[in-house]
C-alpha cells in the first residue's frame, strides 16, 4: 500500500502492569484503536486510528492507559510547524478540504483573559449574596424607549397603556446555543431541553428541526430558521418560544453546513422533513435574503406566522462589519441579535475557515453595543453573545460589555462529556454526543447529562451572583453595559477603545 505520511497524531501508552485485558477499551473505541489478541491474551492498540478522545483512558477500570500527543516530532521549524505539514500531507493524500469539529484551537489573544472585574472596597460596600437577593432575571426582546401609562380608577392608579412586545424570560442570563438534532444525538438535545426547562432558560434546536416528542419543553425552546429551512412548518414556529433566523455561525462565517446522508436516520428525516439518508446541505446564503430588506421581509413573515407572539432573533457570525450589520438587523425588526464569536464551535467546518474567518466575540459585542447605543436603538433589541464562553467570569464580562445574555454550547458539551477531539464530523463520537450510531448514542444518559447541565448553570449563576455582590450590584440590570466596572491589561489603546474600557490602574 502507498506509504502514508507521518499522520499519527496520538500515541497510546498501555501500562502492562495494570492492564487486565478486560477489553473495555476495545468495546468503547468506535475508532477501533484497541484490539484484543485472543491467543496471545493481550490488548493491542493502533496509534494511527486514535482520535485522542480519552474515552478509553477514562473508562479503563485500572487506569492503565495514557493517550498523549504523538511526541514524535518533526524537524523543529517555527514557521513550517507540525500542523502545517500534516495539513499538507493530508491534502496531498486526499485532495479534499480539511474538516474539523469544535472551535478554532489556534493561539489567538483571548480578550476575556485580559479583562479584569471591579470590586467594592470601603467607599461602596459589597452586597452580601447570602443576605440580599441577587437578581439575574433577564427579559430578551424589543423594549419601547418610553413607557406609556394611563391612570385607572378613582385613585388614578398608573397602569400600562401599551402591550409590550413578546419577551423571553430567563432566570439566568445563560442559554444553550444552537446544536442541531443530527449534528448531536437525540439524547443530547433531550438533556439540553430538560436542563433548560429546569434552570428557567432556553435551548436552541439549531437547524435540525424540533422533534415532536420534545414539544413538552417548548416553553424553553428557541427554534431556528436557517438557510436550509429544515423542519420549518407553522406547528414548529408556533410551538417554540422564539424563532431565530440563522444567518451565520462563529466557526464558519459565510458558509453553509453539511450533515452527511448516513447520519440522517428515520427520525432525523422526519424532523428535518428531508428524505432519509439524503445529505442535508444548508446553502451558504439564505437564497431569499440577498439584501437587508429581504431579512426585514422574513422577520415580518415570521412575526405574522407566529401572530406576533414570539420574539424573532437573528444570529450572525462576528465578522468585521458586525456593528453596521447589527444596526441593520435591529432596524429590520429583529427583537434579539445573537452574535457568535470566531471561537464558536461546529460539528463540521473546513479547518481553514474555522481557524481564520471571523473576529473575537469581545470586540464584536463591544462595537455592536456601542453602535446601537449611539444610534439610540439599543432598546429595540437584546444582544446575545456566544462563541467561546468558557466560564461565569466570561459571562459577567460579556454582560458588562453590553450583552443581555450569552449563548454557550462548547461548555455545555464539555459538561456532558465532550473531550474536544474535534472529530464530530466522523459521527463516531465515543462520548455519545455528536453521533447517530445506535451503539454510541446510548452512552449519553439524558438523566445524567441534564443534571450535569443544570449543575453547570446553577454553579455559574451562583458565581455571577458572588461577583455582582462583590461589585455592590444586586441586579443584572446594573451590570449590563456597565463598562466602568471593567479594566484592561495587556491591551493596545485601540483595543481598549473598541471595548470601551479603561486600562487597569486608572480610576474613575
Amino acid at each position, binding site marked *: 500500500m502507498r506509504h502514508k505520511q507521518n499522520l499519527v497524531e496520538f500515541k497510546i501508552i498501555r501500562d502492562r502492569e495494570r492492564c487486565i485485558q478486560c477489553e473495555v477499551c476495545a468495546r468503547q473505541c468506535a475508532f477501533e484503536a484497541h484490539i484484543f489478541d485472543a491467543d496471545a491474551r493481550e490488548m493491542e492498540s493502533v496509534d494511527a486510528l486514535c482520535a485522542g478522545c480519552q474515552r478509553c483512558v477514562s473508562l479503563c477500570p485500572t487506569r492503565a492507559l495514557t493517550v498523549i500527543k504523538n511526541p514524535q516530532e518533526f524537524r523543529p521549524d517555527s514557521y513550517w510547524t507540525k500542523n502545517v505539514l500534516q495539513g499538507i500531507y493530508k491534502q496531498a493524500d486526499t485532495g479534499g478540504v480539511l474538516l474539523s469539529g469544535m472551535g478554532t484551537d489556534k493561539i489567538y489573544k483571548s480578550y476575556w483573559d485580559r479583562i479584569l472585574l471591579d470590586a467594592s472596597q470601603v467607599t461602596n460596600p459589597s452586597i452580601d449574596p447570602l443576605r440580599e437577593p441577587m437578581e439575574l432575571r433577564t427579559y430578551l426582546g424589543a423594549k419601547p424607549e418610553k413607557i406609556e401609562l394611563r391612570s385607572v380608577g378613582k385613585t388614578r392608579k398608573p397602569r*400600562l397603556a401599551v402591550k409590550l412586545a413578546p419577551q423571553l424570560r430567563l432566570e439566568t442570563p445563560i442559554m444553550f446555543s444552537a446544536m442541531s438534532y443530527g449534528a448531536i444525538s437525540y439524547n443530547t438535545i433531550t438533556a439540553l431541553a430538560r436542563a433548560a426547562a429546569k434552570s428557567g432558560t432556553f435551548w436552541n434546536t439549531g437547524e435540525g428541526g424540533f422533534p415532536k416528542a420534545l414539544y413538552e419543553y417548548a416553553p424553553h425552546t428557541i427554534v431556528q430558521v436557517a438557510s436550509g429551512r429544515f423542519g420549518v412548518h407553522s406547528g414548529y414556529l408556533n410551538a417554540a418560544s422564539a424563532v431565530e433566523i440563522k444567518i451565520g455561525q462563529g466557526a464558519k462565517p459565510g458558509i453553509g453546513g453539511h450533515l452527511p446522508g448516513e447520519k440522517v436516520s428515520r427520525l432525523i428525516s422526519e424532523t428535518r422533513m428531508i428524505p432519509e439518508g439524503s445529505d442535508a446541505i444548508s446553502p451558504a446564503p439564505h437564497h431569499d435574503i440577498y439584501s437587508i430588506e429581504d431579512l426585514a421581509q422574513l422577520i415580518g413573515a415570521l412575526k405574522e406566522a407566529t401572530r406576533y407572539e414570539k420574539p424573532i432573533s437573528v444570529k450572525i457570525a462576528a465578522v468585521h462589519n458586525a456593528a453596521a450589520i447589527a444596526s441593520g438587523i435591529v432596524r429590520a425588526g429583529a427583537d434579539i441579535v445573537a452574535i457568535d464569536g470566531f471561537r464558536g464551535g461546529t460539528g463540521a467546518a473546513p479547518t481553514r475557515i474555522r481557524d481564520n474567518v471571523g473576529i473575537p466575540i469581545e470586540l464584536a459585542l463591544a462595537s455592536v453595543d456601542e453602535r446601537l447605543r449611539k444610534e439610540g436603538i439599543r432598546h429595540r433589541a437584546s444582544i446575545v453573545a456566544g462563541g467561546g464562553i468558557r466560564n461565569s467570569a466570561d459571562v459577567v464580562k460579556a454582560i458588562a460589555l453590553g450583552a443581555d445574555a450569552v449563548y454557550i454550547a462548547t461548555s455545555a458539551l464539555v459538561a456532558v462529556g465532550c473531550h474536544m477531539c474535534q472529530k464530530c464530523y466522523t459521527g463516531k463520537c465515543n462520548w455519545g454526543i455528536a453521533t447517530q450510531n445506535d451503539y454510541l448514542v446510548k452512552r449519553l444518559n439524558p438523566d445524567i447529562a441534564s443534571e450535569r447541565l443544570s449543575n453547570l448553570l446553577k454553579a455559574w449563576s451562583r458565581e455571577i451572583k458572588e461577583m455582582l455582590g462583590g461589585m455592590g450590584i444586586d441586579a443584572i440590570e446594573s451590570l449590563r453595559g456597565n463598562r466602568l466596572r471593567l479594566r484592561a491589561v495587556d491591551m493596545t489603546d485601540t483595543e481598549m477603545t473598541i471595548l470601551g474600557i479603561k486600562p487597569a490602574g486608572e480610576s474613575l
Partner: protein
Amino acid sequence: MCGIIGIINLDRRRFSGELIAKGLSHLKDRGNGLGSGYAGYGIYPDNPDDWCFHIFFTSEDARLKTEQRLDAAFKVTKKEPLPVKPMTSVKRPPLIWRYFLKIPAIRPTSTGSAEEREKKYIFALVMEINSSGEGAFVASSGKNMGIFKGVGFPDEMAEFYRLDEYRATAWTAHNRFPTNTPGWWGGAHPFGLAELSLVHNGEISSFGINKRYLESFGYHLALQTDSEAILYLFDFLTRIHRLPLEIAAVALTPPHWEIIDCLPPDEKKLYTALRMIYASCLINGPSALVLGFDSGMMGLNDRIKLRPLVAAESKSFAYISSEESGIVAVAREKLKKIRHPAAGEPVIFKYRPTKNQIKPVTNRDGSKTGGHQS
C-alpha cells in the same frame, strides 16, 4: 457618609436660611470640609419668572466668554456677582455670578407645552456651558431658586454665601465626604438643573450604565459623580418621559422580582415593564437622596436601604434627613409623624393649597396648587 437634610414649609411661607444652616451644621461630622451646600426655593420673589443661573467661573476671561453666550441666548434682565463674604477659611473661591434671564420667544420647533420647551432650552444651554470646557460651571439654573455650594464646612459656606439674608419656602442641604471625585466647588452638592435640585448620600455601583444611558439622550456628565447622574435620571424620567415622580422612583429603585411576581396582574405588568424598559436607570448600591422641585420635595432610599433616611412632619413644616438628630435639632414645632421609609419607598411632601386662593393657581412648573391635585 454625607449628611443630607431638607426642610419645607408646607404652607409655602418663606423662612430664613439660618434654619437649614443650623440643621446641616448639626451633621457636621458627616463631612470632611471638602464640600457642602444649600438649595433654596422661592428666594427671588422679585424675579419670579426669570431663570436664575448661579455660575462659577475659574477666571474673568471665562466669565466674559460665557456672558457672550448668555447675551446671545437670553434677554439678561440682571447680572451681578453673587453677594459673598470673603473669609480666610474659604480658600480660592471661584468667581460666582448670578444672572436673571428671560428666554426670547422660541419658535415652536419642538413639541410639548411652552414650559417644557423653555426647560428644554435651559437644559441645552446648561449642557453646553458645562461641557464647553471654558472654565464655567452652572451651579443652578432654576426659576426663583438658587444653589449655594462650595469647598468648606456647612457653617463656613452659610456664612460665605450670607445665607441668613435669604428666605425660602424650602431648603435642601448637603455636607460632603467626597470619595470618588476630588473636592471641587462644582462637585459639591446640591446639584441643580432647571427646577430640580438633588442632595445625595451614597455610592451607586450602577453609575457606569446610568451614565451611558443618559449620554445616549444628550446628557453630559461634567463631574462624573453619581449624584449628578441621579439628578439627570430624574430630569429625564419626569421631564422628557413625563413620568409622575412616584413612577420615576420605581424606575430608579424597583422592588425585587420575588415581590413583583406576587403583585396583582395589572401592577405586575407595570412593574415588570418598568424594570425592563428602565433597566439602565436602576441605581444600585447604597443611596439616600432628597430631591427638591418647584412644588415640593421627595426623599428616597436605594432598593435595599443601605443608607438611613428619616422623614418627619410638624404643623406647618416637613423634614427629610439622613439622620433624625438633624431634624430634631431644627424642628421648631412638635414633630408628629417620624418615620423611616422602606427601601425604594418615596416620601413626597408638597405645598398645601393656600387658603386665600379660591381657584387653583398654576405653579411655574405647570403643576396646580389650591385645586384638586391632578
